[in-house]
């Protein structure tokens, strides 16, 4: 049994339009993956692909009109989608922790950072205050905050972006989570700060035997910090597998176009046509959702493609996976 098993997760946004007709945005369309303890899974895909929504659906952080309409999330064998919300709240922040893109908005501006760390420890683990304070200093040290004793009394607004992100990571670690979900943890930070934060996260997953999901649109981060990759498009994981295989032998046309668009591989003046409009979630094309953008599309693509195994632990959801011509994106 894996630490996390996500099975056929479907999340929709339901609203009524001006004519009082129900409109449904099909944002997640059957997301399935497993994650073992100690492993890092990188989620990539363009803006709006559903990466954050996957994380929020797993953690039970959806707000109306978003709703999980189908699927199961097994964490340590427990089904989170069936769990009462108090129980789930207890689990989140303790066994499952989340680090988000904008650290400032996630910190309470009116509480000193040391007290915020203590508070989350008290809320979930409890025990004597002194133990929580000690744990806070220990975690601040673990995430590389210099002079933690003094820094504990700092206010959030006194921190730089990189330092605020470290505090958020320290906070996420307070209750020894088994799973850490980092949603664009370094987007907007400078590369040298990004390197510090990513090295830290990778190091922590190894030290504490945590599993980590790292959501990013940066293929450089995925290449160097994850063990496995899930490529998302229009609310579906279109390709998944070990990181080396995904880069060596990308088997879904969308993955190919993403990799071809990296500066390392881009040929200037090639007339690259790699992007395109994301499909309308209120009116998804039948069959393969990429088909209006895909250069390989054939008639059969109006049927939903199977998730083909193209190698060991390597899957791609395309009628022609494993049989695509070598070149072309």
């Amino acid at each position, binding site marked *: 049994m894996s630490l996390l098993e996500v099975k056929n997760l479907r999340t929709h946004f339901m609203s009524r339009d001006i004519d009082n007709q129900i409109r449904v945005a099909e944002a997640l369309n059957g997301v399935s993956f497993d994650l073992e303890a100690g492993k890092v899974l990188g989620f990539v895909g363009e803006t709006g692909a559903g990466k954050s929504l996957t994380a929020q659906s797993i953690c039970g952080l959806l707000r109306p009109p978003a709703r999980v309409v189908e699927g199961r999330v097994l964490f340590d064998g427990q089904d989170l989608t069936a769990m009462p919300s108090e129980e789930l709240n207890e689990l989140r922040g303790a066994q499952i922790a989340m680090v988000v893109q904008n650290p400032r908005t996630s910190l309470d501006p009116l509480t000193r950072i040391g007290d915020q760390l203590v508070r989350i420890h008290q809320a979930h683990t409890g025990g004597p205050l002194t133990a929580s304070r000690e744990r806070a200093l220990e975690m601040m040290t673990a995430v590389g905050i210099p002079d933690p004793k003094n820094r504990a009394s700092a206010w959030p607004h006194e921190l730089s972006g990189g330092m605020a992100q470290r505090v958020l990571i320290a906070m996420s670690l307070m209750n020894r989570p088994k799973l850490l979900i980092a949603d664009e943890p370094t987007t907007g930070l400078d*590369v040298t700060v990004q390197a510090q934060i990513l090295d830290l996260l990778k190091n922590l997953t190894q030290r504490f035997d945590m599993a980590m999901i790292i959501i990013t649109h940066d293929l450089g981060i995925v290449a160097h910090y994850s063990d496995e990759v899930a490529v998302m498009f229009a609310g579906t994981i279109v390709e998944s597998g070990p990181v080396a295989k995904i880069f060596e032998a990308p088997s879904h046309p969308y993955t190919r176009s993403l990799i071809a668009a990296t500066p390392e591989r881009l040929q200037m003046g090639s*007339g690259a046509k790699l992007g395109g409009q994301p499909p309308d979630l209120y009116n998804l094309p039948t069959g393969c959702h990429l088909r209006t953008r895909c250069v390989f599309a054939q008639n059969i693509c109006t049927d939903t493609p199977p998730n083909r195994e193209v190698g060991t632990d390597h899957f791609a959801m395309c009628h022609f996976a494993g049989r695509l011509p070598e070149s072309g994106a």
Partner: protein
Amino acid sequence: MTAPILVVEDLVKRFPAGRSGAFVNAVNGVDLKIVPGETLGMVGESGSGKSTIGRAILRLTEPTEGRITFDGRDITNIPAHKMRPLRRDMQMVFQDPWSALNPRMRIGDLIAEPMKLHLDLSRSERENKTVDLATRVHLRPEFLRRHSSDLSGGQLQRVCIARAIATNPKLIVLDEPTSSLDLSVRAEILDLLSEIRQQTQAAMLFISHDLGTVKLISDRIVVLYLGSVVETARSQTLFSNPAHPYSQSLLSAHLPADPKAELARHVLEGEVPSPINLPSGCTFHTRCPVAIQKCSTHAPGPQQIDDPEHFANCLRISDGGNRILSTETS
């Protein structure tokens, strides 16, 4: 050698900081040169002064000190009304296409606007040229009648580029033009820019914090730290042989999208000091792993490295102590 289209000498820009009489030392004596047709990349972390330099060149912010020569003409102090005809030769593209475009105007009028301002064309000439420009940036003509809210970020950035090239400028300053775009869209915009550069021979100052993008598009690159140029080199040279300790560490933090690429990491300790109280001597000395005593008192000037276009401002070039990595970055 061709005469440069742009020469920036000893540019200084200080902003008042609060009421205390203190200053933000945003740009501290920057020299730059761009020849026609050349793309100069400018990299550095946020707050290193990239945007301020770009804005000062276009006189969107007044330089505190220094000289800016454009097309052989000293434009440092010319009054705003004389700046106006020059705008047609110097254009700018910003990071955020959403806020750069008036949402009430149609795309066609947005593209035509710079021509209306700067070129003496009849209405039909302008309309023809608008369609022509849309084609050149690969926008379908039907978009011309729409508003910016109907377009995606990538399409809007094409509109901004069309506006920037409408008057056949000699220099285009691009400030993080692809930073808000998704990877595939970014690739298309970079491709478009290289196409335009070939067609027009316009010089470009390409500002970005994304090292991979800058490497790809630039002929030469300058590296900034705390408002000073620390290194200048041809693009390939900078990545294969960075000489300044800061450039070495910056490039070592870059993550190529290839799991096989070896990383020779040297992650810097600490954070960039405040530009209000600049460190003395070499402003990098507070974080430099190979600093010596002299570094806190002497400001280094440019030292030539392996070729006549490669300079680094570091006191340890002469004794070879400037290497911070045991292995070379690649």
